[in-house]
């Protein structure tokens, strides 16, 4: 009994082993079609009906599935593998089966208001180019260049050469240049009643930089001061005259003192502002000098009292 059971067990074990080690090769009449990208295998083999009926249905289907899976996996292993973090991974190719749409296709967007309007009016899109071939201007420019070269003068600036279409700025510039091109540089050219004076003609004012060369700036200022000093007259007329007058005063007073007091007091002519006293500082500087002196000399001792009081 035990022997039988042992044999049975062994046999069973062998069978199990055999099943496990079933060959990986599978025989099929028709080869399977594979779409490895979608991990799909199409089996177009006929199913044997008799075999299907003989076996248990379950087992038949299971073995069929097993065979096909084996073939599929064989096919997968044919593709290049790589190792990603201790796992062997197969790089799948692109799927070949066209899968149907998941969502419905997009509807065409409705035309905008402008598009509708344009269609209604028949307006088409026009592209404008920046540059236009200007035959006339080119000719003109070349002609003037030739003339300039021949006569060795310079070509006139923009706006002065005649072109087909001139902008307002060009025209205004041409007008201004023409106005200045007279014998007296436009000084006597009248303007039209509503014409405005041209602004921004000429060069822009240029100033020295804020932080320039300090020493040169200093030098320039000192030179300027020197020039200013030199222009001042060395002899200050006022000063000279006043000095002279002061000298005269001192002389007069000294002379008067020497002559004595009493005589001076008796006489007392006071001839107004100009000769006031002994011609001291008569009036304003310029005219006063001569007048004062003359007055003073004429007066002499008289009028001494007042003068003395002043001092």
């Amino acid at each position, binding site marked *: 009994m035990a022997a039988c059971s042992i044999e049975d067990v062994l046999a069973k074990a062998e069978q199990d082993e055999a099943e496990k080690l079933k060959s990986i090769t599978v025989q099929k009449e028709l080869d399977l079609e594979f779409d490895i990208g979608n991990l799909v295998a199409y089996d177009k083999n006929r199913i044997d009906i008799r075999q299907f009926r003989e076996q248990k249905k379950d087992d038949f289907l299971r073995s069929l599935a097993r065979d096909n899976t084996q073939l599929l996996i064989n096919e997968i292993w044919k593709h290049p593998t790589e190792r990603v973090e201790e796992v062997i991974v197969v790089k799948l190719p692109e799927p070949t089966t066209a899968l149907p749409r998941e969502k419905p296709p997009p509807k065409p967007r409705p035309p905008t208001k402008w598009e509708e309007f344009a269609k209604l009016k028949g307006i088409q899109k026009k592209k404008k180019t920046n540059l236009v071939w200007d035959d006339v201007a080119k000719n003109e420019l070349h002609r003037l260049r030739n003339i300039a070269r021949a006569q060795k003068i310079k070509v006139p600036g923009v706006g002065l050469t005649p072109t087909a279409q001139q902008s307002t700025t060009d025209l205004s510039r041409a007008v201004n240049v023409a106005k200045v091109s007279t014998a007296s540089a436009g000084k006597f050219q009248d303007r039209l009643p509503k014409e405005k004076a041209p602004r921004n003609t000429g060069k822009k004012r240029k100033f020295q930089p804020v*932080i320039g060369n300090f020493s040169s700036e*200093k030098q320039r200022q000192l030179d300027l*001061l020197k020039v*200013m000093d030199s222009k001042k007259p060395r002899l200050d007329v*006022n000063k000279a005259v006043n000095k002279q007058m002061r000298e005269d005063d001192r002389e007069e007073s000294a002379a008067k003192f020497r002559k004595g007091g009493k005589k001076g007091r008796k006489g007392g002519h006071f001839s107004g502002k100009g000769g006031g006293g002994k011609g001291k500082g008569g009036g304003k500087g310029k005219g006063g000098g001569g007048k004062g002196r003359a007055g003073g000399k004429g007066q002499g001792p008289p009028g001494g009292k007042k003068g003395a009081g002043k001092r």
Partner: protein
Amino acid sequence: MRPLTDDETKTMFEKLSKYIGENIKHLVDRPDGTYCFRLHNDRVYYISETILKLATNISRGKLVSVGTCFGKFTKTIKFRLHITALDFLAPYAKFKVWVKPGQEQSFLYGNHVLKSGLGRITENTNQYQGVVVYSMADVPLVSWPSPFTYCPLSNQISQHIALPLHILSIIQSNQSTYSPPPSHTVHYPIKSVNI
């Protein structure tokens, strides 16, 4: 901010030389540093080189003033001195007029200096000479509306004037009487660099 052109420098120097004569070169050429004149918004500023270099970091619209304002150029390019220049003109002034304490206040409020208020005066002051007025304590004075004064009668003449109330120093009015006092309130966004 820009340096002055030659014409502008000349006009300014002529005005300054009325008060300090040839001492302008002491302002231009200083032993203790490079100082220069710069024009900003028609006003002339006297700045040291270091301050100038700092001031260039401030944009034109935001810069209110730099250094010391000496004066400004009017629309007809005449130069008007401002009282802020007094600190620099007073030590170099050639002709000075000292005012008695009684007359001091009167002068500060804009009246002319009369002969009765005259303390001292430098010798040889010519007629119409630009002078700087001092108090008896040697403090330079300046009145509003007009910072600087000139002498309408020369020193020599004034000695012999009969009346004590003769006007001796006429204030050189340079602004209309309706202009605000010199401490301007500025309405620009503030960023001023001052020594």
